[in-house]
């Protein structure tokens, strides 16, 4: 019996450590991708992080210099008659207290103004345009053609070709949000009733996480998105696919799933192009299965998560504007099977 107890506590202990580790690992896995300003992949982000480091090092040097002066002062104060002469101390105050800070601050202000100008400059003419609409708490992504007509609609995932400038036109459907992909560009506010825009060129293929950067309600923290930079040919193939309407499923169970989708209220909020579902309160689901995550990078796009999300979105993302739908089990199964055909 005693041996058993030991065995139990031993097991518990190693489990505790193990689960701590796997907790850390899993939370990074959940984030899909680290979000960082320190690994820029565009000129704009590079400029921003350069300025950040410049300010950091200038600040660090000043801090050290001040600490040094303080130490010297304290040291000398212990000796009698050790003060500087009157004119020497006046000069020190003028130089270190006025002149040097003025030069440093003006240089830094000049640097950030110049950087701001270059970032705010108009994008080059071969720019690709994407319109992103902020909703509580997800991102609608519309690809526009030359005339500004929408050719494809998706959510929480922005594909861009490597090396081509992309302009993101930003508008909010409700409150103020802020669009931010730290590895690509600076924060840009997303306002109701006012079109803002930002642009960047991703120089390296990869998946870059973005995040709403303006508090917008309970699920602000779970309002993320992914920018996927890929080769031009892959991007074209992807966009062509996204622009196409959904295909009618062959499989009878999936067909039943489509009926469920149309009959049980989903269609009043969601669009699936090529069907009667034309709602526009929630994300366009025409190519849902091609997306990596669900609910603005809250959960991976897998069958289990999808079923749980449909059955009870609020235990995944509390307060979300999608109701709980109580389906018969076979309806739920068919519905997920149908949604999985939307590639």
């Amino acid at each position, binding site marked *: 019996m005693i041996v*058993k107890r030991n065995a*139990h506590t031993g*097991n518990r202990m190693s489990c505790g450590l193990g689960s701590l580790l796997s907790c850390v690992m*899993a939370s990074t896995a959940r984030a899909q991708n680290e979000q960082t300003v320190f690994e820029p992949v565009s000129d704009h982000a590079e400029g921003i992080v350069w300025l950040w480091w410049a300010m950091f090092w200038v600040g660090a040097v000043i801090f050290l210099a001040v600490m040094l002066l303080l130490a010297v002062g304290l040291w000398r104060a212990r000796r009698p008659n050790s003060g500087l002469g009157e004119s020497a101390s006046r000069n020190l105050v003028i130089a270190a207290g006025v002149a040097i800070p003025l030069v440093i601050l003006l240089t830094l202000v000049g640097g950030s103004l110049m950087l701001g100008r270059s970032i705010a400059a108009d994008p080059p003419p071969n720019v690709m345009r994407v319109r992103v609409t902020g909703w509580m708490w997800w991102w609608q992504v519309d690809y526009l053609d030359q005339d500004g007509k929408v050719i494809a609609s998706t959510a929480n995932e922005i594909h861009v070709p490597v090396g081509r400038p992309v302009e993101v036109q930003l508008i909010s459907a409700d409150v103020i949000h802020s669009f931010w992909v730290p590895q690509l560009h600076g924060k840009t506010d997303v306002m109701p009733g006012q079109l803002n825009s930002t642009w960047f060129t991703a120089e390296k293929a990869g998946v870059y996480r973005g995040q709403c950067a303006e508090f917008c309600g309970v699920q602000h923290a779970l309002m993320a998105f992914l920018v996927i930079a890929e080769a031009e040919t892959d991007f074209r193939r992807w966009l062509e696919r996204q622009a196409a309407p959904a295909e009618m499923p062959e499989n009878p169970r999936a067909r039943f799933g489509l009926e469920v989708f149309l009959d049980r209220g989903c269609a009043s909020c969601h669009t699936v192009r090529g069907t009667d579902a034309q709602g526009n309160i929630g994300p366009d689901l025409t190519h849902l299965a091609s997306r990596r995550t669900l609910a603005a990078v809250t959960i991976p796009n897998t069958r*289990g998560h*999808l*079923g*749980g999300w449909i*059955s009870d979105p609020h*235990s995944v993302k509390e307060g979300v504007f999608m109701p709980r739908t109580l389906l018969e089990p076979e309806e739920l199964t068919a519905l997920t099977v149908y949604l999985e055909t939307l590639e």
Partner: protein
Amino acid sequence: MGNKVVIIGKLWRLMLPIALALLSGCGERASVPELPARADVKRGRQLAEQVGCGSCHRIPGIPSANGQVGPPLEGLAERAYIAGILPNHFDTLAAWIAEPQRFAPNSAMPNLGLSEDQARDIAAYLYSQGRRNIQTGEEF
């Protein structure tokens, strides 16, 4: 991705005997209950999180797993029956996870397309959160 998981899994299996040998070196720990063959608690936890168990169930040790669609899985190891229909043994639990419809055709719990090994890993994780010797099924 799938391939990677398999390869890592294989590597881990190669390392497991070494790890066990090291562990048994530290006296006290020698009596830690061994896992059932071919099951890995840590991998089970990662799988449970990835495939989405947590969107329907509350699972101890996985903070994001707070679904309320199905029953909470705290204390699963102590329960007498799984899903109210299967006696609670490691193998039946793994089989249920792999294919719920085999036992309850009308269950809302989906078939996640897990391999037998993956289902065993998840079952091992769930058991590891309770007070039951995974090997013998005996409660501590």
